[in-house]
């Protein structure tokens, strides 16, 4: 295992009886990276997160977090974790929750530091309010503050914006960029693809407990999907003329030639001009993360 990597897993698996929740999870995440972990509900994302956090024992495989075996207490000292099912002691105030976690994390928990965390997640005005008076969104903000206690080197966020409004989501994105600027590694488990697209360096798609694709956003989503052609037909119909370059999908006044790459553009334009067509635009079309999600997860929704 490479100790310079923030997280490294080899063939990690988890079975519940005859059901395989996670199969052969192999990941390599560098320090300072924001890594998106994507997949539909029930794909095994949260189980994977729990194994990384040392809350669930793997059925097979190995892994290290910050160079130490998964679950090792020394690694957990530098881990910040926001669970998907977030709930904090309802009889404590927001500030008391932070004091408790600062003590458990083994850090000083100075008033100034904890107040700064509450300020950062927009809860400073409610610092003395009991958690049971908080909305779900406010509890999630509190969870983010808890996850950031002690300046962790590795932050594990399981659906961190599921209860937040658009403004809250924007704030989380800014927070993630801030973490990246501080070289903090972030493992972001989410099915909000636009969010992942905006902040992640690399992503992995998981479905039915298996990783089906892994790489940078360009490698996964930015792959050339085809070429969109806007042209007035000459002697032959446009669709018929462009069939040899790829699968043609007419769409209003343009056609999408799926599978056609940048190298085929000159030949494609020449074919159109030779046929007497008037060409207005030829533009490459990249797949979006959402399109790749549907392709890779078999069209399953994110619910």
């Amino acid at each position, binding site marked *: 295992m490479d100790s310079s990597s923030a997280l490294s897993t080899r063939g990690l698996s988890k079975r519940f009886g005859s059901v395989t929740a996670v199969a052969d999870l192999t990941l390599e995440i560098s320090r300072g990276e924001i890594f998106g972990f994507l997949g539909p509900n029930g794909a095994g994302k949260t189980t994977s997160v*729990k194994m990384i956090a040392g809350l669930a024992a793997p059925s097979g495989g190995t892994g290290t977090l910050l160079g130490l075996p998964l679950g090792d207490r020394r690694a957990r000292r530098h881990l910040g974790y926001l669970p998907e*099912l977030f709930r904090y002691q309802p009889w404590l105030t927001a500030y008391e929750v932070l004091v408790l976690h600062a003590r458990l994390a*083994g850090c000083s928990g100075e008033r100034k530091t904890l107040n700064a965390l509450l300020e950062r997640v927009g809860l400073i005005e409610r610092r003395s309010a009991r958690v049971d008076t908080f909305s779900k969104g406010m509890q999630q903000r509190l969870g983010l503050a808890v996850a950031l206690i002690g300046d962790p080197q590795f932050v594990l966020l399981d659906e961190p914006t599921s209860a937040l409004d658009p403004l809250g989501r924007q704030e989380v994105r800014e927070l993630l960029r801030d973490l990246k600027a501080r070289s903090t590694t972030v493992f972001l488990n989410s099915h909000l693809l636009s969010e992942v697209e905006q902040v992640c360096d690399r992503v992995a798609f998981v479905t039915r407990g298996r990783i089906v694709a892994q790489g940078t956003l360009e490698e996964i989503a930015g792959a050339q999907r085809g070429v969109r052609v806007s042209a007035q037909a000459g002697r032959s119909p446009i669709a018929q003329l462009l069939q040899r370059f790829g699968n043609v999908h007419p769409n209003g006044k343009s056609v999408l030639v799926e599978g056609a790459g940048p190298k085929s553009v000159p030949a494609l334009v020449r074919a159109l001009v030779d046929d007497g067509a008037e060409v207005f635009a030829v533009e490459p079309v990249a797949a979006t993360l959402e399109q790749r999600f549907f392709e890779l997860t078999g069209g399953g929704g994110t619910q």
Partner: protein
Amino acid sequence: MIAFALLTFRELARRKFVLTALIATAVLIALTGWGFSYIAHSRHHGSVPTRMELAVVSANLVILLAYLFSFIVAMLAVFVAAPSLANDIESGVLLPVAARPISRASILGGRTLALGIVVCGYVALASMAEFLVVRAATGYFPPHPALAAGYLSLIALVMLSLATLAASKLPGIAAGIVCVVCFGLAWMGGIAQTLGTYFENDVITHFGTITQLLIPSDAMWRCAAYQLEPLALIERMSGEHVWSGPFFVANPPPAALVVWTLCWIAAIYAAASRSFALRDL
């Protein structure tokens, strides 16, 4: 571990568990005090009971009350321990806590320590208050109140450790049911042992004894009951060939039984701690 003990104390205080238990118990003790006072001043065939008659009636009633109190204490221990742990596991409260650089044993240890202190403190306070109220009303005071309270506390600790083990594996309600059934089994074991001895049936006697050893809550009740019996009552009843039952115990508790119970509590707690450490959250 200390952090979790303090957290549990704070939970019990803020959720008004302690206050509710104390108020309900105060009402109960006040009612029994009124009842004892009524007995002390009642007339039988035109005359008030003699000091001896009052002592015999009071001694028997104190044992009966303590018997009911042992049920309350056992159920209190179960329903304070089982749902709180199981609910914290199910609701996800423990997820961010257990991900911290601490051992699961410290989470469970702190919680159980605090619950044990609160429940045993409650037993000591409530039983002493009851004994003092009885003395104020009738002049009778049981011979070994502190030892009786100690054995009642052991009943609480037996049920607390059992509830912790059950809640480390099962949902809160299921854990509570398991504990109540076990408590009932121990009670039945005690009855079986009494009947087996009376009818000289070894099979039933051994069944009762084994059940009482497997779940020593009823055995601890009998130890507590013995400490509440005045010597005169023991001598008189023993002379009349009366066998031990839930309300009269002829022989003092064997030291080995107390040692067994303490080991049992430690072993069950150790099993709970291991079960909690190994389970997925």
